[in-house]
């Protein structure tokens, strides 16, 4: 794609900008920031990846993966405001998910040990784990309000914190995995996923693109389950005071 053609893609932002102005949505500032950020971030990543792909050095790959985990943790952690120590637990959950997923992919020789495979697949796995963590925390916040009576009844009957929120955790884990599972059910029928589309646009055969997409979808299923379960087990105690009573969360 030429630079001129890339410039023309701003037309799409202009459409959104116009709609926001016309309907008084007040999104102009956010759109502007989003446009600048996505362009700058992606261009920067493009340059970084070009350098990384050339060097193919395991240390640099590891560093990039760690930065991805850090950013994902920071972003998902904002959903857990008021829960002291949530960032560490999200970080451990995403790190473990990435390690298990990548370990299986490399160990079973599904993908080769090259930067070109490791970075994009890690990015997608970590991104999905981030979304799952956010969904989990959002749902758990809702549960501690709507099912507070249920949890406190169990506490009043002498339940441990884990016993008191067992059903709340289960429902939150389920809720955080549903988008991934729904995505598996409708992929290809409702939407063509970004990676597959990208590969096809870049000239790969659709069948090749589909194979990698299947890999990604299956890896997502396990990474969603792993992240969510790990995060629920590592963080359930944070919803309680040191007295083992349920904290009052905002929202």
């Amino acid at each position, binding site marked *: 794609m030429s630079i001129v053609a890339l410039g023309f893609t701003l037309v799409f932002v202009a459409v959104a900008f116009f709609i926001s102005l016309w309907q008084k949505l007040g999104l102009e500032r956010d759109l502007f920031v989003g446009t600048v950020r996505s362009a700058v971030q992606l261009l920067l990543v493009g340059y970084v990846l070009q350098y990384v792909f050339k060097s193919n050095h395991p240390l640099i790959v590891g560093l990039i993966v760690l930065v991805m985990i850090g950013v994902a943790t920071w972003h998902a952690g904002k959903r857990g405001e008021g829960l002291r120590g949530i960032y560490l637990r999200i970080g451990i959950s995403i790190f473990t998910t990435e390690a298990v997923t990548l370990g299986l992919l490399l160990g079973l020789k599904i993908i080769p040990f090259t930067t070109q495979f490791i970075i994009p697949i890690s990015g997608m796995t970590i991104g999905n784990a981030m979304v799952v963590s956010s969904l989990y925390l959002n749902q758990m916040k809702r549960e501690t309000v709507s099912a507070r*009576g*249920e949890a406190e*009844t*169990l*506490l009043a009957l002498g*339940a441990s914190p884990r016993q008191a929120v067992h059903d709340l955790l289960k429902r939150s884990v389920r809720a955080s995995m549903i988008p991934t599972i729904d995505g598996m059910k409708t992929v290809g029928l409702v939407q063509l996923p970004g990676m597959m589309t990208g590969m096809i646009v870049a000239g790969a055969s659709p069948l090749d693109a589909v194979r990698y997409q299947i890999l990604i979808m299956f890896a997502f299923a396990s990474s969603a389950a792993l992240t969510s379960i790990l995060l629920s087990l590592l963080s359930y105690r944070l919803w309680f005071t040191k*007295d083992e*009573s349920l904290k009052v969360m905002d929202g």
Partner: protein
Amino acid sequence: MDPILSFHGLTKKMPGDNKILFTNVSGEVFPNDRIAVLGASGQGKSTLLRILARLTTAEDGQLFWRGTPSGELPGRQWRTKVGYVSQQAEMLPGTIEDNLQSVSRLHKIGFDSSSAKEWMDEIGLGHLDWQLSARELSGGEKQRLALVRSLLLKPEVLLLDEATAALDETNKRAAERLLDDWQQNRQAALIWVTHDLEQAHRVASRIWSMEDHTLSENFQLGAVH
């Protein structure tokens, strides 16, 4: 005799702002005590009970179980000794039987089905099929089931937050009789929050009044209001 449950200098602020709900609240509970907590709405009676059950934390003050500070006992251990029945009877998912068995499931102990059956009969729920969904019961039935469920925990102190408010007079009396028998058989202590003065006279031997942001004891029932 030493108190089983005692609390000193409890202070609680209103959620959201920093206004004092109550301050310098102290008291002692002995085996066999039957205490009614009276006071106008908004004085913090329910909050006090929740603090005693360690479901809410006080900003200041201390709780003791047989002289041991509450901080030295995990919440779950505390709550097996100090039972709590809330005003809104919350049914756990599942059947009536699931609810009755909740204590045995949580603590991995045998289900005392004979006591459960006996108490369900006494409280006027003997006719219910235990396989019915507990959440389908009426408000009064839920409140009575919640009471029996808490009795099966066999706590040494039972905190009752208007635990018979949804009951008609006949069922209220049945619940009072059951609680009275249960308390006497176990030498347990009962603390009732109630708005019903007649009920306070029937069920209590001691009266705590919550007014002017603190708690005081009325040694004679006739002295109340």
